[in-house]
């Protein structure tokens, strides 16, 4: 590589979908050697398309329709398949989002590396393979090399994917959400690894992520994408401290942070679909600063400061981020609404203990968060409370009345008083039912006053509830397929609240949503909580979300309660080593 050439240089890139709509356009991105550039955006922003284009690759019939992609000074666009093969994996490599499905299930660990090395004309003997594994802190010994991908943990699979990406010492590696799906502790270790490899080998990294907080700790520069364009880029610290684009500012305001708990502000509206992007600035419909100029034409790339670039007519007017403190809440000191005692659940004939003598109480009006990594038992406990899973032992009481193991053994009144919202709104609504029908149904099954009023009365009540969760009125008669993730989750919340429950179970209700939508849903839930006097049992793996909504927190590890206390205390001064590790590993901007 010539000394002055950047590791990766993308200019004027256009990638089109089969129908001709541009998935990304006018993308400018540069990654220098020994530099980590984070490409951040919400789902549908085109960041993966950009990442793949860096390898001269387009997916699903899409095609690269213009621009330039240079790796270590060499233009990739226009190369034949054969020449591209020589570049891919050798000069520019790719680390996939989900290594579990990107590793060949019928190929041993060592063979993955051997195949790659040989494809690029390198020796693939055991010593080389061993060194490649050890470089990413995987065991290099024979027994490990002979393992199959399914015998590795998620973190090990991701390390192997990184080892593959680095095996031929490329100039640049594209890492596409490499830590999504991993628990926070593993994520922190992988991030450390990436940083170390950059320093040790001079590797350039294009790090794709939806999570600003996660990249804040490793990125040298950040590029923010929205609806197919890079709307802003600059040095990480400067961009986070003083965003120039209203979208970046909005993202920062919606980012929960456990170190600096603050009021979250979501971005209203949703990203336009690929074929319905507005003519001017794509963010204009959601932008508080939008003017007629924004709607008329797309703003050009300007440079408000040295090494900064932004696509916004109002960059100079974008206010600096203002973080409001969390609203103070009176401590809930009401009588216990939910009491769980000595809850025990195991699966597989006692092999897996999901809950081991778990006990807690929830006061009326309180929000308790159950926190833990996957496998900690938090969802199992929620399912027991909801009556979807029968515990092996223990007692669950609602307002003093012991509840039957399964929901069908509980009275209608008991079922009405306790409602649940599930993790994945795309799967928890009946695809054949319109939003308003979905909300009206529980009224007819469980409602107190509406059963008498019949269909018309229940539909009226459902309409009011949809208004309350701020679902646009025109969407009330839409089926789930026509709604976005955030809209679907609003419908699911309306469906739970319409029967006026006292206790609402929220099982990871924002983990399938983008941060700006997550913030809006959490904002809504906080408001409804005050308005309706709800008691919340909130299940999440995200400490930032906990800090934004909960009063008290219960930390779980392998089915046991590790620590419990007020959120401020547990997050700021965790007493137990496990909680300390979680708090330290959770991504945060203020570090």
């Amino acid at each position, binding site marked *: 590589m010539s000394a002055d050439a950047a590791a990766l240089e993308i200019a004027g890139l256009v990638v089109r979908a089969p129908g001709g709509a541009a998935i990304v356009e006018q993308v400018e991105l540069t990654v220098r050697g020994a530099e980590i550039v984070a490409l951040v955006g919400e789902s549908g922003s085109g960041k993966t398309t950009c990442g793949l284009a860096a390898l001269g690759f387009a997916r699903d019939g899409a095609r690269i329709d213009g621009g330039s992609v240079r790796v270590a000074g060499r233009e990739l666009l226009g190369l034949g*398949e054969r020449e591209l093969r020589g570049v891919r994996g050798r000069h520019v490599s790719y680390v996939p989002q989900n290594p579990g499905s990107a590793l060949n*299930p*019928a190929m041993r660990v060592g063979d993955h590396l051997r195949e790659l090395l040989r494809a690029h004309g390198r020796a693939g003997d055991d010593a080389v393979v061993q060194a490649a594994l050890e470089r990413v802190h995987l065991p290099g010994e024979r027994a490990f090399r002979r393992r*199959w991908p399914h015998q590795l943990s998620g973190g090990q699979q991701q390390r192997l994917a990184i080892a593959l990406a680095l095996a031929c010492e490329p100039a640049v590696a594209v890492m596409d959400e490499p830590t999504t799906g991993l628990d926070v502790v593993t994520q922190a270790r992988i991030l450390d690894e990436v940083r170390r490899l950059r320093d040790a080998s001079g590797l350039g990294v294009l790090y794709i992520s939806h999570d600003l907080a996660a990249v804040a700790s490793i990125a040298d520069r950040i590029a923010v994408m929205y609806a197919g364009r890079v709307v802003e880029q600059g040095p990480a610290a400067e961009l986070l401290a003083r965003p120039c684009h209203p979208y970046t500012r909005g993202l920062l305001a919606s980012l929960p942070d456990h170190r600096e708990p603050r009021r979250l502000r979501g971005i209203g509206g949703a990203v336009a679909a690929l074929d319905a992007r507005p003519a001017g600035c794509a963010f204009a419909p959601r932008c508080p600063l939008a003017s007629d100029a924004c709607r008329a034409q797309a703003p050009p790339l300007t440079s408000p400061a040295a090494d900064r670039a932004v696509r916004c007519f109002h960059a100079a007017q974008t206010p600096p981020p203002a973080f409001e403190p969390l609203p103070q809440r009176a401590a809930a000191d009401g009588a216990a609404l939910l009491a769980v005692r000595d809850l025990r659940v195991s699966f597989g004939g006692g092999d897996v203990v999901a809950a081991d003598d778990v006990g807690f109480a929830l006061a009326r009006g309180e929000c308790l968060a159950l926190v833990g990594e996957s496998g900690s038992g938090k969802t199992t406990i929620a399912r027991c409370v909801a009556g979807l899973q029968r515990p092996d032992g223990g007692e669950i009481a609602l307002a003093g009345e012991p509840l039957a193991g399964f929901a069908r053994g509980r009275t209608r009144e008991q079922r009405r008083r306790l409602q649940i919202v599930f993790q994945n709104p795309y799967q928890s609504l009946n695809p054949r039912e319109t939003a308003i029908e979905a909300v009206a149904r529980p009224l007819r099954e469980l409602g107190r006053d509406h059963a008498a009023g019949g269909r018309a009365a229940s539909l009226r009540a459902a309409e009011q509830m949809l208004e309350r969760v701020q679902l646009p009125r025109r969407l009330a008669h839409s089926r789930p397929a026509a709604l976005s993730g955030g809209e679907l989750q609003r419908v699911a919340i309306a469906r739970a609240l319409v029967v006026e429950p006292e206790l609402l179970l929220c099982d990871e209700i924002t983990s399938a949503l983008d941060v700006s939508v997550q913030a809006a849903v959490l904002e809504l839930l906080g408001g409804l909580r005050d308005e309706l006097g709800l008691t919340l049992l909130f299940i999440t793996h995200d400490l930032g979300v906990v800090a934004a909504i909960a009063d008290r927190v219960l930390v779980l590890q392998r089915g046991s309660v590790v620590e419990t206390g007020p959120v401020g205390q547990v997050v700021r001064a965790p007493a137990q080593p496990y909680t300390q590790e979680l708090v330290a590993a959770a991504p945060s901007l203020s570090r």
Partner: protein
Amino acid sequence: MAGVKRQSLGGLVARRVGIAVVLLWIVSLLVFAATQVLPGDTASAILGKTATPDSLAQLRAQLGLDRPLLQQYTDWLGGLLHGDLGRSLAAGLPVGDLIGDRVGATLTLAAVTLVLLVPLALLLGVLTGTRRDGKLDQVVSWITLAGVAVPEFVTGTLLALLLATWLGWLPAVSLIPPGESPLAHPQYMVLPVLTLLVAGLASTVRLVRVGVAQAAAADYTEMARLSGIPERRVVRRWVLPNALAAGVQVIALTAQWLVGGIVIVETVFQYPGIGQTLVQSVQSQDIPVVQAVALLIAAIYVLLNLLADIALVLLVPRLRSAR
């Protein structure tokens, strides 16, 4: 992290064999029960309309049909376990002698068909699966669709019409002399094999194609391409091993279908195999032969399933060790 709990292949095979034995026992019960509910009984079938009640009772006693059902079953099962398949009521010969040649003839037909079908199915499946929506894929897709839609007795009749009646290249029926191997008379095998091939290829190619196409579109295959692995290598090391798992099941299914489908094709071409025997002995109410043949076909099914299971475990690493 992931505990590698290795399950020995021996233990796995032993468990599958155990399951197979239990299955066969259940099949023996079903076969016995089914033959009991056939209308009429052997004695009346042998003696015909002229039978008197006395002669019927006498023949029943002679054949052991007057024993209690449970005893008939245990005697039959006991005989089976000692290799005694019983005695044909119609021919008076031991069933084993009667169907020995026939089994050989059928297995020969099935084996010849399989030997041709498996490589052809894999080849066409891989070619069409890796070049989806290409010209070859479209042509093969239409032909196989037709092959799946048309039942094999129609295919067989059409082929016989074309190759035997009109062109006169081949004999229309497979009159293999008793006691001789069908391999000694290849001209008699062409039509049955061809018919089975046409019908069998249609479904196998389609299933193999789906398996290959799935593996070719999988994340890991895209990842291999993004790593600069040459295309032939991608197909050989990424697509094929993962598609083969589906292939094995397809082949086992096809082999089982062959054993069943042969009944029809043997009848169409009067090929002297167990299928034809089964049809004849059902007509003549020759219960011991029906029982033996039915159980034999079931045993072949179970055996093929067993082999497919073992092959699958050998091919798919994930099945060999639990997390």
